[in-house]
């Protein structure tokens, strides 16, 4: 079969590696527009940059340093990671430094106007694929790779194949971007998209707002994906014009109609119900209706996949006029300070606090069992985070169920996993 057209990811890699057309499978040397590091993996990268003998960075303005995993720090060792980041920023003349609580990197990057459609972004965090929601290509790499890219201004990449995941029709009530990506994980498993780009399509995708698209792209790495992509549409156009007023020249990249996809997966959006990933894998997905009755100790609504204003509004919708069940810690973490402030203006924070929720600073925190809500032995949580591997959120015997903010909030009220209908009516 002769291939004539190109996929979006092939076009973006071509544009960043000199302009000549590239094909999936090619190894190219590309210049990223943005290189993002966080406090944990950044610390290792800073050391490696120094050991490489780099006295300066190739493009300091491309670099974004975000202290989000341990922010504010729970220990002197964690505080040291932030000071090392700040020192590196000063030494290397990096201006985009966020170490004083501004928020979680993947939500912060687009919020602060540091991500544009068509960009190539690399980061020391595996969830850098979240950038795909903005018609850009983002991929997570290790500290050595990112150190090399900062020193040289470019790095080698193998251009990935693309899996197209098309969601047709309209979503039902209580179904979010989170459920669409859980449906994909249920179908293909934790290595079903290894080394590939997952490109989304279909009317149900167009129906997602930007927050929901971030949740969708964020968890593609849980299927092993290298990157994710949502093609530009009116929703992205409106976001870009609002974020960059006066600008007209955006790089709208789309796959050609005759591009070759490694696989095309079709989903009937109306048939997807609220889903829940059971311990100990993000692909151990079951309908929430079949997960009910599990007693819980904690609910966590936050993290880079689901700490957005949309998630806070969903949580407040359920918690308004209700109370968190006795004995349950309901921890809500807006992903950025600005989201937190906007939520306060909308009265959401008061609603959440009145219900008995804990509203925390914008940090990765308990998602990775770091701080602000770790789990003890045998404790069970429902979380809007993206991983539930053994020991992820704390004690090795603890268990995490992944679900959307509506399900998480409803479960907080019930004290056990429930479908939102059970709390907020059908």
């Amino acid at each position: 079969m002769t291939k004539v057209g190109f996929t979006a990811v092939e076009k973006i890699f071509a544009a960043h590696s000199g302009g000549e057309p590239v094909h999936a499978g090619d190894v190219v040397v590309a210049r990223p527009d943005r290189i993002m590091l966080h406090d944990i993996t950044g610390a290792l990268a800073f050391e490696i940059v120094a050991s490489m003998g780099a006295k300066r960075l190739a493009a300091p303005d491309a670099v974004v340093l975000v202290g989000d995993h341990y922010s504010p720090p729970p220990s002197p060792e964690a505080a040291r990671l932030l000071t090392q980041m700040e020192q590196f920023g000063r030494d290397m003349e990096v201006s985009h430094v966020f170490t004083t609580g501004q928020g979680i990197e993947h939500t912060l990057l687009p919020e602060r106007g540091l991500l544009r459609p068509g960009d190539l972004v690399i980061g020391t965090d595996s969830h850098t694929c979240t950038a795909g929601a903005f018609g850009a290509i983002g991929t997570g790499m290790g500290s050595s790779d990112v150190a090399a890219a900062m020193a040289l201004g470019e790095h080698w990449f193998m251009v990935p194949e693309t899996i197209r995941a098309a969601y047709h029709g309209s979503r039902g009530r209580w179904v979010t971007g989170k459920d669409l990506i859980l449906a994909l994980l249920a179908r293909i498993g934790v290595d079903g998209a290894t080394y590939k780009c997952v490109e989304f399509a279909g009317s149900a995708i167009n129906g997602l707002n930007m927050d929901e698209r971030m949740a969708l792209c964020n968890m593609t790495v849980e299927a092993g994906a290298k990157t994710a992509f949502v093609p530009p549409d009116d929703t992205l156009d409106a976001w870009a014009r609002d974020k960059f007023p006066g600008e007209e020249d955006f790089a709208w990249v789309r796959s050609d109609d005759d591009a070759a996809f490694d696989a095309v997966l079709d989903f009937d959006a109306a048939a997807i119900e609220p889903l829940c990933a059971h311990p100990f894998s993000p692909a151990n997905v079951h309908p929430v209706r079949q997960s009910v009755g599990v007693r819980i100790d904690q609910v966590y609504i936050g993290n880079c996949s689901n700490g957005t204003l949309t998630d806070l509004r969903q949580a407040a919708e359920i918690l308004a006029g209700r109370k968190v069940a006795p004995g349950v810690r309901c921890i809500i973490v807006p992903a950025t300070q600005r989201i937190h402030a906007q939520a306060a203006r909308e009265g959401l924070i008061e609603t959440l606090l009145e219900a008995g929720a804990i509203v925390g600073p914008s940090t990765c925190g308990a998602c990775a069992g770091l701080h602000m809500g770790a789990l003890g032995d045998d404790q069970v949580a429902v979380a809007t985070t993206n991983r539930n591997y053994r020991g992820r959120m704390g004690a090795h015997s603890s268990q995490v169920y992944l679900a959307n903010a509506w399900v998480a909030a409803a479960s907080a009220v019930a004290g056990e996993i429930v479908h939102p209908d059970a709390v907020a009516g059908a």
Partner: protein
Amino acid sequence: MIEPTPRRNALPQVHLFGDDIDTDIIVPARYLTTRDPLVLARHCMEPLAPGFADRTAEGDILVAGRNFGCGSSREHAVLALRGAGISCVIARSFARIFFRNAINQGLPLMICPEAVDAAHDGGPIAVDPVAGAITIDGQVYQARPLPDFLLGIVSAGGLLPYVRERLARQEHPE
């Protein structure tokens, strides 16, 4: 003072694991306030096999199923394995970020389902990462070869020496 695990007076030993061994198992995030491989090694595989590094010796081989190293991008996972003395990982398949991280740290990886089938936990094994050869019970298995470019990075000791040399050439072009 944490001592490195001494090499065995015998062939390296196999440490056998299953599918989807993720980076939260290889080294939980809350221990990542350090980059010291010997400190990280104390927590290597902790959620699944606490005290793993007490049972390994320098040069031992980790053998695993599919999708080894899935999850986070933390390069600390490779450091923890190195600190525990693991000199090579053989698996049915690897997750992509872990694969690059191992290459970059000079830790050889080999994809060889037949060798994984033949391996016994605790049994002796011999590996030649350059040739891609794995010997178990007198039988030699051939792993899928790494591209020369990647083998070059591993042989150089990792990405750091590679970039150091390239930057030095930039500073002083011949």
